[in-house]
């Protein structure tokens, strides 16, 4: 009886430890919040926290798509360019009437799907290296965006209230972009855990050859991950456009690095097959918290750039360490 009881405790402890190991990132987040609220008085206020959340929602939406692509064993470095393209096109279409608003929501999303499909077709069809291909599409898309705007700013002065509300509105006192972000997270989490799509993508990411031999149409599903990522990037672009309204045609550059960092911080394996969208959410929040605290601590923009690079390398190194440890 006592023996069984201790064993029960042991099993429960083991389960708890396993759970913690899988979700270490949430503990890190908790530690960061505690630390920051001790260091800076203005950190743990509702206004600041909501601000941080709203700030990260765009990069967060991109990270969700990136996580799915990473789980499928690929990288998508073109997302920053897609964000820019979607934002610029959305504003350029002048959402000043109901009709125009619909157009300036639909066209960017279609463009996002298109960029994703092109990436996916090249990478899926040819098994070409995803980093190099998406760097190529990144340049092509950015060039197209600059060409479209002639390198000038694009702006819209009086968008419809609906368009304005995409980033400026509140629901139950919480900014709408946060809802869009969380909905994307939940949708992707559902896709990756409860559907055939998710299982297939995981299978492809962990062993492409085995997945193909067991009858999964790998080319198609690889392509679908890129299409999903393109869609997420375009969605983020629309939120960005609605928030800024006066866009410089390079506005989305750099989102790919935040998205990659967040996904890796969340424990997504760079070699594919392993990853969890909810943990990416924690990664996004940590990144947001860090840049917020750097602002609160009055660091210069350039130092933040350096810090972000170091965080990226650190996250990658931790990923590599844990993988080696498992082996």
């Amino acid at each position, binding site marked *: 009886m006592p023996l069984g009881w201790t064993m029960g405790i042991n099993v429960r402890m083991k389960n708890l430890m396993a759970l913690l190991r899988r979700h270490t990132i949430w503990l890190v987040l908790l530690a960061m919040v505690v630390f920051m609220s001790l260091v800076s008085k203005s950190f743990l206020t509702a206004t600041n926290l909501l601000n941080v959340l709203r700030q990260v929602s765009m990069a967060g939406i991109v990270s969700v798509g990136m996580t799915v692509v990473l789980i499928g064993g690929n*990288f998508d470095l073109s997302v920053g360019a897609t964000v820019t393209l979607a934002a610029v096109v959305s504003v350029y279409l002048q959402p000043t009437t109901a009709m125009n608003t619909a157009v300036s929501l639909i066209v960017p999303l279609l463009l996002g799907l298109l960029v994703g499909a092109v990436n996916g077709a090249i990478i899926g069809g*040819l*098994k070409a290296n995803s*980093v190099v291909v998406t760097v*190529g599409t990144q*340049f092509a898309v950015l060039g197209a965006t600059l060409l479209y705007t002639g390198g000038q700013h694009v702006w819209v002065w009086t968008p419809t209230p609906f368009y304005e509300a995409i980033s400026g509105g509140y629901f139950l006192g919480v900014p709408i972009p946060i809802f869009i972000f969380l909905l994307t997270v939940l949708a992707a989490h559902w896709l990756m855990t409860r559907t055939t799509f998710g299982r297939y993508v995981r299978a492809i990411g962990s062993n492409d050859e085995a997945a193909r031999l067991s009858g999964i149409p790998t080319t198609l599903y690889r392509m679908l991950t890129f299409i999903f990522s393109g869609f997420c990037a375009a969605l983020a672009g629309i939120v960005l456009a609605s928030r800024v309204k006066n866009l410089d045609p390079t506005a989305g550059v750099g989102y790919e690095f935040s998205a990659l960092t967040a996904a890796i911080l969340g424990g997504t394996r760079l070699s594919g097959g392993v990853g969890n969208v909810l943990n990416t959410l924690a990664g996004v929040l940590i990144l947001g918290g860090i840049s917020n605290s750097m602002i609160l601590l009055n660091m210069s923009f*350039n130092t933040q750039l*350096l*810090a972000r*690079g170091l965080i990226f390398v650190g996250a990658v190194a931790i990923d590599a360490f844990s993988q080696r440890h498992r082996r």
Partner: protein
Amino acid sequence: MNRARVWNWLVKQRILPILDVLLLVMVTVGTRDFWTIRNLQNLTVAVGIEGVIAVGMTVVMVGGGIDLSVGSVMALAGVLSVSMQRFGIVGAIAIAVLAASLCGAGSGLLVTRLGINPFIATLGMMLVARGAVMTYTDAQPVANANLLFTQIARGKLGLLPIPGLVFLAALLLGHWFLRYTRLGRDIYALGGNEEAARASGIRTDRVKLAAYTLTGLSAGVAGVLLASRLSTGSPVIGEDTALNVITAVLLGGTSLTGGVGSMPGTLTGLLTVGVLSNSLNLFNVPAYYQRIAKGMLLILVVFFDSLYVRYRRQALLRTRGKASEERLTSTS
């Protein structure tokens, strides 16, 4: 059968022969400015500065790696070569090149010690080096006051601009290194099949580290040349250097999977990319179109590289039979 052989040859050459003939006809017929000494000198300088990096990039790519950080490392070296002038010209250049080599070695350590995917490791180095140089200069360009330093890249030896001379020296040195030194042969072995290279006694980690350090060094030399040419250390240059260089190296027949490639090939790739952007400039094509063209060219080259890899695999299967298939799938 014969047509298939011609096609395979073209794929192996990345259809460079066709592209080059088209380009040369275009620039010769379309504009009178191409075959002028002045333009050819400009072309030499432009090709030369990125060409020095391409030499290093060829080494690392033959070894099966890649370096995406060359652009920011080049910016870092350029800034250091100007801001460290108080140690004298030679001292400043030495510091700049040393710092760049250290960046390369850093990437190499990330790849070898931690086993990080080279794309991601060098992407990280790219962010860190860019952040470092932006912090160091506060995002402001550093002006050069030393006329002698400016003369390095603006000077000419006869008709040949010095950057072109440096590039030729680097190319010859690289060719000798890859072909005739033990380390160079080890790099080919490493890129061809890492497991086999390790099994036959090559210290693969050291070889990789050396390759990344060399690439960093080449980016450093290019950074010094560019800073001297501009007479400024700019922290924001080099955004598309990696793209240009990798495109040129791939065009020259080096494969993303490693194990194949040569310096003469890289030279043809460089000249093609150089003449292409030079002619786009001569035809007054807006910079945005050039960006699109460069992106598409990279994708096209990767496309041909994939075709080539597939073709090579089939050829191997034909000659060695089924037994080699397992080995191929286990390494690729």
